[in-house]
């Protein structure tokens, strides 16, 4: 029974025992010991002190043992750079072995050592390997150049290895070409400059490539191609469409990426309607397959996230496939939520009834977290489509009868948005929302309630009383609610006068003198001054607010473009800026110290 503990210290006895076994005469015993050392290493126990003993095993004839030794060497080279040099001899010997597997292994290991002053040793073997007769060795060598560049960029320049890499772009073996592309893009941080002359050959090569090589080529084309005319783009799209029938979803996604990037050469879509629609029609079956229950939930998530931006740009082009976005009970929450978002995006005159039915069904799900998203979705439809707004509002008001706290809260949340868009149209429901004041515990929703009281004090009979209740426990509220209370208080006080006037005045004084947050104090003082100015303040507080527009969709135009340009990437799935996810060379700590 192995003690499989992370960061557990290895006792002296254990080390001594293992060392003895590593130096044992019997082969099986040595092999067992080596395995154990690697197990401990991989669970994070520190066995770096066994380095010399492990290295001795490299003399073995067994490839399996060699592999284990090299694994160990790679793992501890950074911690024990002075010991890593001991491995160089064996490695250089193996780099000229007759067996290509061994040559490649030695090369891969050397380039993974990540110790700067060992890198000089690798130049000769690497130079030879880039021209090795075996494509297996050449493909390994191509990536070694990128590894070397990661550790000592200057050395790569000096040895002219980048030119060697570019030469490999014309290699007869597709796998070698693909790895050369990967290496070049790794070195340049994403982009590889292809000449237009290379394009036909690369595309023709796709049919002979293994799946990952196809992905590499497709992705690098998406990153690097720029089209001068829509026709160029159309012909590239035409030439890769067949990849959509590949069984590996990674290949399908990479193809989609290239096609979608090419499509943007036809922007704005309205200028080439039939071209764009034709392409979208071609993509639809693949998109639907990726989000249907055939694929994995994880892949569904990735595609759905990106798809939302695509629909925002190109309109509800999948509206005939509503059924593909119906949630299944067994799906994980993160997929269901995205599906509901897409349903909202697919609303059109033809699909609206079906979508409403589905959303209403979803309100009966056991998972209240999910129901919350469904309610928001109903509201969002109302926000985006004025002609369905009444229907949405009726459904929301109807949902209040479920008497579920989660549902009530999200109804209030979306309703506030509807009010800000349609102004007078739904004011009559404000009072019925405020009936639930005691059921609401979420801060964001309480803030909305406070806002409602202030903004609609004319329509709320008991505004003054509600305000008094809010003020009574303002100190227990969070910052956002407190801020909202300040403006709500002044609005109500100006409207109803009387007792609330005094109450609000002393409330503002209390805030100004005791609150920790400087911004809130400023706001309180500002509002106190406004309150002093009496009716003149009306013009400021109750000023006409422009209609808030939610019609365009959830994303800014820039976000949509960024997601489509990086389709399938992490930045696209997380809706973050690509720059935020790019690796920075210097770790955080060292920078802080230099401040």
């Amino acid at each position, binding site marked *: 029974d192995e003690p499989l503990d992370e960061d557990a210290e290895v006792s002296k006895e254990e080390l001594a025992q293992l060392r003895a076994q590593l130096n044992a005469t019997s082969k099986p015993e040595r092999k067992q010991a080596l395995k154990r050392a690697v197990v401990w290493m991989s669970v994070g126990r520190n066995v770096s002190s066994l380095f010399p003993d492990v290295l001795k095993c490299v003399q073995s004839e067994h490839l399996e043992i060699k592999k284990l030794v090299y694994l160990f060497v790679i793992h501890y080279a950074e911690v024990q750079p002075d010991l890593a040099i001991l491995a160089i001899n064996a490695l250089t010997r193996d780099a000229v072995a007759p067996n290509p597997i061994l040559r490649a292994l030695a090369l891969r290991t050397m380039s993974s050592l990540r110790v700067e002053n060992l890198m000089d040793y690798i130049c000769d073997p690497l130079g030879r390997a880039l021209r090795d007769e075996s494509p297996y060795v050449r493909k390994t060598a191509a990536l070694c150049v990128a590894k070397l560049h990661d550790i000592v960029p200057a050395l790569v320049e000096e040895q002219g290895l980048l030119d060697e890499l570019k030469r490999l772009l014309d290699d007869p073996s597709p796998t070698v070409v693909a790895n050369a592309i990967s290496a070049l893009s790794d070195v340049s941080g994403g982009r590889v400059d292809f000449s237009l002359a290379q394009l036909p050959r690369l595309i023709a090569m796709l049919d002979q490539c293994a799946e990952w090589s196809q992905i590499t080529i497709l992705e690098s084309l998406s990153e690097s191609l720029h089209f001068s005319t829509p026709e160029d783009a159309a012909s590239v799209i035409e030439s890769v469409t067949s990849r959509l029938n590949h069984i590996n979803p990674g290949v399908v996604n990479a193809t989609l990426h290239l096609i979608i990037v090419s499509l943007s050469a036809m922007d704005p879509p309205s200028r080439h309607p039939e071209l764009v629609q034709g392409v979208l029609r071609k993509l639809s079956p693949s998109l639907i397959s990726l989000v249907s229950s055939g694929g994995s939930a994880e892949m569904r998530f990735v595609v759905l996230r990106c798809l939302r931006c695509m629909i925002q740009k190109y309109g509800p082009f999948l509206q005939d496939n509503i059924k593909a976005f119906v949630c299944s009970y067994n799906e994980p929450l993160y997929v269901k939520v995205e599906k509901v978002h897409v349903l909202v995006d697919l609303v059109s005159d033809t699909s609206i009834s079906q979508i409403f039915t589905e959303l209403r069904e979803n309100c009966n799900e056991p998972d209240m977290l999910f129901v919350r998203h469904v309610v928001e979705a109903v509201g969002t439809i109302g926000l985006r489509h004025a002609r369905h707004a009444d229907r949405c509002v009726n459904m929301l008001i109807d949902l209040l009868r479920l008497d579920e706290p989660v549902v009530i809260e999200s109804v209030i949340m979306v309703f506030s948005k509807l009010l800000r868009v349609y102004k007078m149209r739904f004011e009559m429901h404000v009072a019925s929302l405020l009936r639930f004041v005691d059921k609401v515990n979420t801060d964001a929703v309480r*803030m909305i309630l406070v806002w409602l009281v202030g903004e609609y004090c004319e329509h709320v009979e008991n505004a003054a009383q509600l305000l008094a209740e809010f003020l009574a426990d303002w100190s227990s509220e969070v910052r956002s609610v407190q801020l909202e209370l300040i403006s709500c208080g002044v609005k109500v006080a100006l409207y109803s006068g009387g007792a609330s006037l005094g109450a609000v005045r002393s409330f503002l004084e209390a805030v100004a003198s005791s609150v920790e947050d400087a*911004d809130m104090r400023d706001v309180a003082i500002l509002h106190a*001054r406004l309150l002093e*100015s009496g009716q003149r*303040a009306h013009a400021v507080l109750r000023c006409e607010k422009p209609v*808030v527009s939610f019609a365009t969709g959830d994303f800014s135009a820039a976000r949509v473009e960024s997601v489509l340009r990086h389709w399938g990437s992490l930045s696209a799935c997380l*809706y973050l800026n690509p720059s935020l996810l790019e690796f920075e060379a210097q770790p955080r700590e060292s920078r802080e110290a230099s401040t």
Partner: protein
Amino acid sequence: TYVCRSLKDCIKAYRECKTVEEERAFVKKESAHIRDLFREGDTAFRRRNVQKLVFFHMNGYPTDFGQIECLKLAASQNFKDKRVGYLGLTVLLDENQELLMLITNALKMDLNSNETMVIGLALSVLANVSSAEMLRDLEPEVSRLLDHRDPYVVKKAVLVTDRIVRKVPDLTEFFIHKTAALLAKDGHASVYQTVCCLIEAICLSDPSVIPNLRKLCSDPLGAILMNTCERGSGDPETVLHGVPNPFLISKCIQALRILTGNEPTAVRNLCTLLTTVVQLIEPTKVAGVSILYEVVITCTTLDVEDTMTQTVLKLLGTFLQHKDHNVKYVALRELRAMVAVNPAGVKKHLTTVVGCLKHTDISIRTRAVDLLYTMADAENASSIIQELIHYLWNCAAEEQPRLCSKIAALAETFQRELSDKASVYIQMLLAADVRVPDRLVALFIALLSVSDTRTRVSTVEALHAKCIAPPLGALRDRKPRCERLAVSLVGEYGNVWMNNAKSSDTDSLVPLSMFSNSTRALELGNSGRSPDFRTLLGQIVRLVEASDEFTVGTYDIDDDWGRLRMAELISIRHVGLLTVAKLIARSPNEGAENMLASREVLAPYRSHPDVETQQRACEYSVLLTSEKAELRAKVLAPMPAYNYEDRRTKFLGDMRRESKSMRRGEGVLSRSGGGVIG
């Protein structure tokens, strides 16, 4: 048909489950069978099933349905059942006090049993889980058992009494004479030791009885103490590393300490005893140290004479150098208490303590920080502040908030110049950013509101140079809290800064540096230059726009640190709009040009989805129209100064209260005198 598994098989099967799901499924199945058996009124397997539930409960599964069965078992005449029943009750019943009341009768029966083991079992249950009502009901039985012939029963009864005294204070006085009587008997070591606990409980629950109790108990206790130190408790099995029964000795010292009530004669008598103890006990072994530790505590809680203090300081010196880290921990902790008694003696160890900030163990580091904080005085405060700020850069995130408060308290107490305090705050903010508590940021702003123009200008300039002027980096390189503060300060003092730069020539500003000798002195900004109005406005707008970036994807970051910063960046938008309004309203060249600029800046936010943002943008746009000049001048006038002194006093008061609560002996024994910081 289902065969009821044995406990062993059940645990085995549970342990054979590979995943958490399998475990859950197994427990649910087994629980369903147990439910069925309970419902059928089975007695054959009841004991075994309750034991299974105890096992499930420990692994976090619901077991409420077993509580009634436990009650039934506990009330059984069969000791085997009874033992399991009581075990089940103590484990399965947590907050449910009503159910607990139901066993009062069973306990009463058992306390009257003839069988020692049954009484012992009932006493254990009563001592471990019982409500005040139960204790009140059963007090007569317990009281009687204090006179039981068997020390095994007596020691348990004493600890139940301890609980009675703690939970039902009004019953305290019944037990005073009983306690004395127990000490007078030639009793068992463990009885003495439990009686010491009881004495402590009595003194805590009713300090007025201390003089009386002292008269009755201190002599016998002293005798027991000396006897044990010299000859041991007559039981070789209680000797730990050559030290006779350290538990009994320590408990005796604790009891004697609380019995003095800090009355001078009593204290002197105790000191005499303790001097002997110090001579008898070796400080090398940890068991010995644990006794000497009690001596040290006595010295830090009572008003003792100087010779004793010296002895204790010497002891602490050896503790601090001890190779056992636990002893080092204890030493740091007690040195902190010694500051109030003999500050000079503690100061000797300053270098060692600073060295402890580099220790690998957070426990040691925390103690060192607390000690440094306490030992600061007018003379060494500056260097201690610098050490702590240096530590602030390197310590773990969760330590930062408390550490910031300490640094601020030191600065507020010992720095005389407001500008020096400001410098400390700026360094603190740059080091800890989002981990600086809101309260300190507020205090800093309050401080600026009462300081002179030069301090304000230099602060704004320094923060502007650090947070606003440079191009925005990646999210994880930004300092959101500093940025937000900088934006808000530019709003309040930006105009002063720009005017100041225009009116004065550069030479008239003397450089403000805080500590000429410090390693990390931060030069406050003093260039005398400021960006022009348009540039500054542009920089603020850039920050506001940047904060919009983070609204959509807020929840796609999964660590608290990232989310905290996001929230902070989003609120920059609110502050930024106000700053824009302030800058324009207070700008001297109030032309149509400014008005246009403002409307341009605010326009996109007038239809912003965020309620607060829209509200502000709309209000400020109205205020910044030309016909609202008068109202604007009034509403956006400079903000009144904060009541800095009040806030400062309140903050220092809270800090003092916090460090007081860290000290021992609160309420019963109060020392005279105290440190500067407390």
